[in-house]
């Protein structure tokens, strides 16, 4: 059984905003399947008493004090931007989204200023 379906690849491509052709969907589904099958082999040796690893180093509670540290100047901050206007990063408007996925819920329905 294949580890990832063509539909899932299409879904991932949409989430990543990648324009993937029908042909590429077939190719990627096959390639990703091989990768996922390989990774799935780890699951075969994982015992119930071994929790999934998210961090390779056993560290917890790395915190910093609430102290202001100088950051970038505005010129520095904007220097890497493809474009800027009114001291802000200028990016193409996301027009075809019927819903802004932002947690703020700002976007097409509101948030104009």
């Amino acid at each position, binding site marked *: 059984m294949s580890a990832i379906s063509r539909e899932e690849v299409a*879904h991932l491509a949409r*989430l990543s*905003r990648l324009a993937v052709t029908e042909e590429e969907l077939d190719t990627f589904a096959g390639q990703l399947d091989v990768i996922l099958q390989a990774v799935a082999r780890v699951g075969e040796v994982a015992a119930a008493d071994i929790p999934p690893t*998210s*961090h390779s*180093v056993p*560290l*917890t*509670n*790395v*915190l*910093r*004090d*609430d*102290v*202001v*540290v*100088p*950051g*970038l*100047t*505005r010129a520095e*901050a*904007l220097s*890497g931007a493809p474009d800027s*206007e*009114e*001291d*802000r*990063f*200028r*990016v*193409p*408007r*996301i*027009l075809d*989204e*019927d*819903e*802004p*996925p*932002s*947690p*703020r*819920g*700002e*976007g*097409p*329905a*509101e*948030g*104009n*200023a």
Partner: protein
Amino acid sequence: MSTTVLPSYDDVVERYAPVIGLETHVELGTKTKMFCGCPTDFGGEPNTRVCPVCLGLPGSLPVANKAAIEATIRIGLALNCSIAPWSRFARKNYFYPDMPKNYQISQYDEPLCVDGWLDVEIVGEDGQPELFRVGIERVHLEEDTGKTLHVGGATGRIHGATESLVDYNRAGIPLVEIVTKPIPGTGAKAPIVARAYVTELRDVVRSLGVSDVRMEEGSLRCDVNTSLSPAGSAEWGTRTETKNVNSLRSVERAVRSEMLRQAAVLDTGGRIVQETRHFHEDTGDTTSGRSKETATDYRYFPEPDLVPLAPDPAWVADLKAALPELPRLHRRRLQQDWGLNDHDMQSVLNAGAVELIEQTVAAGTTPAGARKWWLGELSRRANEAGVELSAVGATPAQVAELQKLVDAGKLNDKLARTVLEGVVAGEGSPSEIMAARGLEVVSDTGALTTAVDEAITANPDIAAKVRDGKVAAAGALVGAVMKSTRGADAKTVRSLILSRLGVEG
């Protein structure tokens, strides 16, 4: 919507049972952002409070702010939550430029605080306080997003906009999200329970001193979930999530309007779609936002750049021991100290006068004296001006001073009101105003005598008539003094004038 005839509210709550739920975001008042040392103060020039971490530049690494973790644990403890012995941050991936990383660092299945409750008091139909226990599902920590501004397009309208301009000053400010469990069983009281919950939550967070929790400035924001099921049904209905609810009053209105809307849909055989709706302050209505059926898949996964949190139980115990008295219990104690019955205490609460009276009493006057001014004259003026009582123009210290002057017999009630008028107008402290206007009951002559002498000198004809026994003519002199002193006590002025002119009143 406009073609649908809404049923009456009473009718709706007779036939349907609402279930509500609230998700509240609180912006913490830490000095720095959640994962970097950029300052958080409000109102900087765009993109001046940013660094490689909050701009998501390659190679930068976030480190969690200890003060934010502590504040979140304290909120959790105040809401009777368990503090997770092990907790992780997660990436919430989405495609929108308000976060430069293309994801928000949040918490997913391992929040810091879980399973608590908050007792919320409302006024029952019999006028007695009624307690609702609102279950708290979770309290977790995440980061706020940047601000987007949409520009361009021929019409200049939002839907014609072609570009977004982004300011990342706000991106990365710590946000605490507090999620309730579903709240069934509130019936017709659902809207006021929702409002009472957010009010109480705000007061709790404020008492902890971890946020200024101002809804109008967006440091406290609320999403309201509402569903209806037929009365007596064991199953809950499909819920909607209303966003953009930006005041306590709107919380109440949003629940109510959503109950009415859903009932109208259900009455005509329709089905409620699980969706996000937007609340409109001006109309009190909600309109459809995005449908959850096509909702984004956030692809949560543990944040690899941050190590897990494992709060030391001893630290948590210390934080718990140091929690301040909770607002509801604090109010209960004040009510006893002030000797008020439930009804009178409710009036104080409704007027938003609890803290003001508390501070006035602390400034050295009696609870009764403090309450009289704040609930009487000052509430009246606040209502007239359409402002909050705290913004009426008098401070607790001034009110306490005023009442002390009354208690000392220097002002009677009527004169005190005149003095208060001066305080509100910004003329100074009660003592200063009393002296300047010559309002003291037992006149110290001084300023008032000078004003009287000036009036006599300026009106020799009238003064002569009064000396000749035409006492009634003194009225014009009284008027002149009242005018020059901007409202001295007429009786005092009159007797002063008569005695200066050698006539017995």
